[in-house]
């Protein structure tokens, strides 16, 4: 079992504030791994560091064995490492279908290909995925007119459309109607199993992440506090203290 993502001794500071310090973790290919920690513990910063949103001060990030810490966001995305946003981001004035079509992978597109129409295969795939996330009927609506939860589903669909090898999900269940969470978890598992997409998930909802992830990392104050299988994490006194202590 090889690691698809290896983060090694990553450090990131903003001015004098240390957001991430000496973080080392690995995500094995084909698994679902969780990232938890109290608010402000540096989870989203770590995601930003991984996908190239900002430069890291020290350390290395390897995806699929290759160093990516110097690359910019679009390059990393084209290698198949994709993230979704905590504050859901979709293209508000475009229809859902258009949102999906433009999310098709950009890997080996020449300059001239940008003039072409999207191939029919893309369209079929977009519709299938919209069906999968439950938005098929709304495919011709403007994405900005959808409810927050629907936008979140759309963003998930767009990420799948991109055929990533690994997805970083920033709080996929936040703001989603509790009755829909089960369905979402089911979809995440299917994506992981059927499409073989590795998932690395930030999540605040403990019952979700404990059920979903096979392995969990816990951050506190910008440092790696604990790691282990869900049951180990649940029993870890340091983790409990971090959550209770911070709030």
């Amino acid at each position, binding site marked *: 079992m090889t690691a698809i993502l290896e983060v090694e001794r990553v450090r990131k500071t903003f001015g004098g504030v240390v957001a991430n310090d000496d973080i080392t973790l690995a995500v094995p290919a084909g698994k679902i791994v969780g990232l938890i920690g109290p608010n402000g513990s540096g989870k989203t910063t770590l995601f930003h560091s991984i996908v190239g949103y900002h430069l890291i001060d020290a350390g290395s990030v390897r995806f699929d064995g290759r160093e990516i810490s110097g690359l910019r966001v679009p390059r990393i995305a*084209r290698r198949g490492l994709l993230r979704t946003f905590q504050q859901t981001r979709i*293209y508000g*004035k475009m229809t859902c279908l258009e949102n999906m079509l433009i999310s098709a992978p950009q890997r080996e597109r020449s300059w001239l290909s940008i003039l072409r129409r999207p191939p029919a295969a893309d369209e079929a795939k977009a519709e299938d995925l919209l069906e999968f996330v439950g938005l098929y009927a709304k495919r*011709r609506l403007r994405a900005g007119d*959808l409810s927050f939860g629907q936008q979140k589903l759309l963003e998930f669909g767009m990420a799948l459309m991109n055929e990533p090898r690994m997805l970083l999900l920033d709080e996929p269940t936040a703001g989603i109607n509790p009755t829909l969470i089960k369905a979402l978890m089911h979809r995440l598992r299917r994506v992981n199993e059927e499409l073989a997409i590795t998932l690395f998930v930030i999540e605040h909802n403990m019952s979700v992440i404990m059920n979903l992830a096979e392995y969990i990392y816990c951050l506190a104050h910008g440092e790696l506090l604990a790691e282990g299988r869900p049951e180990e994490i649940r029993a870890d006194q340091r983790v409990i203290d971090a959550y209770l202590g911070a709030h």
Partner: protein
Amino acid sequence: MRPRTASRWLLGGLLTLALAAPWLVPAYRTQISFLWVMIIFALTWDTLGGQMGYNSFGNVVFFGVGMYACAVVQRDAGLEYFPALFLGMAVAAALAVALAAVLGSGLLGLRGQYFAIATLGLGFAAGEFASGWDFIGAGSGMVTPLYPGEVGGRESFFYYLLLALTVTTFLVLRRLYSGRFGLAINAIRDDEDKAEAMGLHTTRYKTTAWCVSATFLGLTGAAVGNLIGFIDPRDVAFAGPTFGVWMVLMAILGGKGTLWGPVLGAAVFHVTQELFWTYLLGWQRVALGLLILAIVLFFPVGILGWARERWPERFGHTVDERPEPAEGGS
């Protein structure tokens, strides 16, 4: 009638009318020629401003560069009128594209108001620079060569040239918007960070969009220089406070980010403006300032934008097939 068929009929009807206009109303040939110019202005501005969300006050630079480039070729190439004109237009387009590519790689990295202000500076800098450069006649401008044909032939020739340019611009943009390119620049408009996070070649798309705009603006500039016959650096070629702002207004008036909006806006604006010139002697520019304010303050969504908010289903934004309550339909 399906929208696509309707659009085809509309286009055909307008085109027939446009082709016949020089016979129907010969006295208005030049005014209508300028209507074509305005439509090109609005369409090419909208590529960036409406479709991509990059509001430029500096697109007039490509127009001016094309105008001067063509005039210089006509002056210095030592060719007959038509070969020189067509060579000049080719050079104009090439130069405008090259400039857009170079400027784009830097300026298109600026976002929001910074891009708008930078392009504002760019437009005026070009005008001031042209007024100081002796090679292109500095402040006294340039005169384009005399048209060789019979009297009145010049107007007809440039009328059809500009009409052809307008139709080409429209068709090319329509083709581009309907493909991947259109989706990509729309995505950049709606959320550029997201587009980058999805792996889109944003810089490539942005620069290409500006190059497409620049091509048609350069060609138009070349033709307009010859239609007017005289190139003034500040008032014709790099006319920021007039053409530069009008482009923006026409697109907004008709409806930013739509294909027909800029065409509609240009037509309405051009007619209004011509009326001002006719009936408000001396005060027309004041009235124009008021008009700008009125459009921006009271009608920022534009004609088609308003229609789309009013009847979203006519624009295809419908809930499909399964009869669910359309909670999302605006």
